[in-house]
């Protein structure tokens, strides 16, 4: 199986780091994505992901790790949303939109300061769209800590999260503390966003959270199966994308395509395949009946 991989692929240090950190990030993001979609929070995820770009831009200015910056800013935005619980569902969208806009405005400021202040990175493309091949051994520990914390929160609160997403009133009757569960979910979500942003950038991190979970929920209704499927699809998207980026070097005569594009392209391909596959399976069943 490994013999099918192109020569030098697994020997390259940037590829090794990308496979390990990117693969872990993709699995964590996909797992957190499932309860997030069941709770109907795709838009909140997108907003928090975009707002995290402000943190990624702030990180070099205050001398912290980019992952810390991403998590810090999306957590701040999440707490801001949580501090003002909406009275109706439509109001949540309004609040999310407002936080979205405000966060991107702050990102514009920090990205500008990155370019113009001494010591800033000036790497706006990297903050927004990521550079998975720039990850190094020093990124492994922070990634493991953030991902481990997200998985721990998920393990502790998965049942109440799922119950609350399916029927909040029933969950409340059964003694589920909705507020605490909501906070735990937001914390796991921001950690997963930070981790995903580290690999494919703040803007594209939504794709790692939403695409595998969405494909999994197309294929199955059962949460446990959906979680496993999402993790597998996320990993396949990340590793497939890294392989595609490596191969693009050959197709483009050394020009190469950005890894983030390749990763998202494979993820979307898997999503389309899942939707098509389910449609064909249903057609087949109807034909048989």
């Amino acid at each position, binding site marked *: 199986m490994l013999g099918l991989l192109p020569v030098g692929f697994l020997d390259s240090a*940037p590829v090794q780091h990308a496979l390990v950190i990117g693969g872990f990030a993709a699995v964590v993001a996909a797992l957190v994505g499932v309860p997030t979609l069941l709770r109907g929070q795709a838009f909140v995820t997108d907003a928090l992901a975009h707002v995290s770009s402000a943190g990624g831009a702030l990180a070099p200015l205050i001398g912290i790790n980019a992952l810390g910056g991403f998590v810090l800013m999306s957590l701040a935005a999440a707490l801001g949303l949580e501090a003002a619980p909406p009275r109706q569902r439509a109001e949540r969208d309004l609040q999310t939109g407002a936080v979205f806009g405000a966060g991107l405005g702050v990102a514009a400021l920090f*990205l*500008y300061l990155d*370019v113009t202040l001494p010591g800033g990175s000036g790497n706006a493309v990297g903050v927004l769209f990521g*550079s998975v091949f*720039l990850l190094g051994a020093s990124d492994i520990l922070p990634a493991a800590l953030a991902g481990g914390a997200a998985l721990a929160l998920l393990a502790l609160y998965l049942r109440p999260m799922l119950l609350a997403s399916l029927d909040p009133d029933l969950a409340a009757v059964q003694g589920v503390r909705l507020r605490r569960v909501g906070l735990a979910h937001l914390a796991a979500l921001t950690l997963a966003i930070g981790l995903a942003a580290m690999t494919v950038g703040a803007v594209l991190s939504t794709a790692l959270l939403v695409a595998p979970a969405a494909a999994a929920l197309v294929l199955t209704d059962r949460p446990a199966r959906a979680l496993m499927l999402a993790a597998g699809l996320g990993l396949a998207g990340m590793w497939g994308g890294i392989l595609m980026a*490596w191969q693009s070097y050959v197709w483009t005569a*050394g020009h*190469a395509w950005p890894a983030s594009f390749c990763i998202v392209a494979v993820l979307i391909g898997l999503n389309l395949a899942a939707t098509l596959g389910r449609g064909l399976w249903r057609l087949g069943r109807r034909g048989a009946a």
Partner: protein
Amino acid sequence: MTPLTRGAAALALAALALSAPVTSAQAAGTGPLRAVGIENQYADVIAQVGGAHVQVEAIEIDPNTDPHSFEASPKIARALAGADLVVLNGLGYDDWAEKMLAAAANPARQDINVQHLLKLGDDTPNPHLWYDPGTMPAVAHAVAEALAAKDPAHAAEFRANAKVFDAALDRWRQAIAAFRSAYPGTPVAVTEPVANYLVAALGAKVMTPAALELAAMNDTDPAPQDVAAQEELFADKAVKVFLYNRQVTDDLTRSFLDMAKRHGIPVVGVYETMPQPGFTYQRWMEATTAAITAAVAQGTSTERLVPGQ
């Protein structure tokens, strides 16, 4: 920021500057001419040619920031609108200035676009023209003619100053010639193409993959194959010196720097804009060439020309 949005911002600023009242020296008819060098190395040449008759301002002077990503402010738009002479690099290196000048067209102002002066096509891949020994003498003579047109009373002085400037580059040209004959075909590694015209003048060869140089310059994702090729250059000691751009650094360039040091490859810090204080254009080029020579001859590193930058 994309060039498109940057351009739009620059145009808006230029429009603002146009609506401001222009009270330049030329309008008053007396006092020194006002000139702007977009990069401080061009401002230095204007100052050397213009002497006491020209008041020069430089826009891009901070050696710790990346000029490629520079953005203009309303203050700069006003400086450009009130200038009698502007020297810019061209080739997209300072396209914000190009757009601003086009938007604030002023027939009385002399614009010298170094790219056009040297008749270089827009497809020229390396914009760092001032590292080419042929560039600044041509700029100095063009500046002298432009100043002479604005201030004919001092024309002879401007032309004489340009000749003095050109002659002052002899020491640099001699150092280049000495290197060429002593160390022909020296292999070098770089982070991006900042000093590549000088490398070519020295008869040396850049071994770094061209796509990797462009990835570092344009902040895009590097191909792992190119990263591996660069790392092999260090591990195999296949290069004699590593030219490290001090103004554009990120995790990738820093990892190359660590690797070069680990394998005992001498490092020379190179700059996009003229380091300050203590440098003229001539001294900067001489110091860089001397540092490269010392690296190849004695294996010594010169990571910085100025402490802390």
